[in-house]
């Protein structure tokens, strides 16, 4: 089994709050308001982040954009390597067609999750545009994908793990970096 050792805290709760406020402003600026946008959080940590962003946008613009959640289990490209029972469903309470969809996730890494999310999203309708917001971009992309809104760029090594902790899920808001000493090897 994998053994993890914590190394450093990259963002604390205040830093995350400021980053979310900034991203909310950037979203409003880029889309000229909050009209016609919808936030879609990728299961599982993208969802609480999307809710926080929606609240921030409501503060700025006075309208709260709708929030949905997207489960990408059935769209993954690594099926056959590992599988887990699916405990979350896709639940998007607005039409993605003709909407500017802001995909929200915690960490952008290889880009494969976002690729799956784009496929899943396209099966639900035809968004006017899709933009990507992440708390952390840690590099090492394996696909031509980039984020439109980034909380923090964190240069990392493949032998490290970057984790976003959220109050709703983990009891506190923070971003930490960990050394992975894996006995399995190979799995990135």
């Amino acid at each position, binding site marked *: 089994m994998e053994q993890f050792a914590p190394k450093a805290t990259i963002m604390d709760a205040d830093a995350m709050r400021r980053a979310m406020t900034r991203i909310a402003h950037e979203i409003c600026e880029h889309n000229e308001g909050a009209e016609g946008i919808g936030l879609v959080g990728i299961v599982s940590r993208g969802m609480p982040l999307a809710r926080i962003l929606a609240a921030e946008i409501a503060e700025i613009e006075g309208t709260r954009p709708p929030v949905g959640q997207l*489960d990408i*289990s*059935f*769209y993954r490209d690594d*099926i*056959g*390597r*590992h*599988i*887990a*029972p*699916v*405990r*979350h*469903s*896709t*639940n998007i309470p607005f039409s993605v067609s003709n909407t500017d969809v802001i995909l929200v996730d915690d960490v952008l890494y290889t880009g494969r999750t976002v690729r799956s999310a784009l*496929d*899943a999203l396209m*099966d*639900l*309708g035809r968004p006017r545009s899709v933009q990507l917001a992440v708390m952390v971009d840690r590099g090492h992309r394996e696909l031509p994908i980039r984020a439109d809104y980034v909380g923090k760029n964190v240069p990392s090594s493949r032998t490290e793990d970057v984790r976003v902790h959220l109050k709703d899920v983990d009891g506190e808001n923070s971003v930490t970096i960990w050394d992975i000493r894996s006995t399995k090897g190979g799995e990135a």
Partner: protein
Amino acid sequence: MLSVRHLIDTTSLTADDITQILDTARSFAEINGRKGIKKVPALRGRTIVNLFLEPSTRTRSSFELAEKRLSADTLNMGGSTSSVVKGESLADTIQTIDAMNVDMFVVRARFAGTPQKVTENTDAIVINAGDGKHQHPTQAMLDLYTIREHFGHLDGLKVAIVGDLAHSRVCGSLAPALKTMGADVTLVAPPTFQVGDASWYGCNQTNHLDDVIEDMDVVYMLRVQLERMEGAAIPSRREYNRLYGLSLEREARMKPEAIICHPGPMNRGMEIDAEVADCARSRILDQVTAGVATRMAEMYLLLGGENNGIHN
């Protein structure tokens, strides 16, 4: 990850296995109910053979739809078109198909034990789609799903299974699965239709529907299988309907929240009256809807993981 490699019976499934299937099925139900594309690429590139050696309409179409919505490639083989009728043995048929590198067999058969036999002749995963009077595990999963969606849980529920228990593979799968999930099962049948063993899976047994109907959360009516009955095990259609049929009068005595299930196809006017089949308590069409989602979950969980033949 399920604890079994094949889905042959429900007696091999743990409570955790069943919960995984039902939870995963909920996600597939969302896909089946959406307005956009009712299809996911989860089993793209996998080949599934539907080997139906006994006539079947709803189970077969449910499986085919489930496979298409998972993006699997499928091959349909029926009794009348396959070489089995030309005298080829089942083992030879399976080995021949197996040599073409398929990933899964879905097997419906007239004789109990056929799906198990198939597992001995292939490296592919096997799902039992009903074998003789033995088991019909995918029916049991869709029944459990339907009941759990209504009540939110299965443990502690009182479920009556009514009808031709001795001939019923539906009962053979449903009763043990309900017991595994902590439900209280009562088997209701005329003496000639009861299961032989008085302590069968710890289920209560009675010959009188009227004694128990007011106490039940779920009344599950089985089809009287006229085609499986040679000789008269029951006196007449009318007599059976009078003693064991679910009439409007009996329906009115059920608990306010109680529901009615039936695996179909129904003999309206025999085990269930026409008005009852269409009443507000009836979950019969929900069961059909649940069939696609639960079969998707079973195929996904059995084929999607390390459990499949490719990675072993």
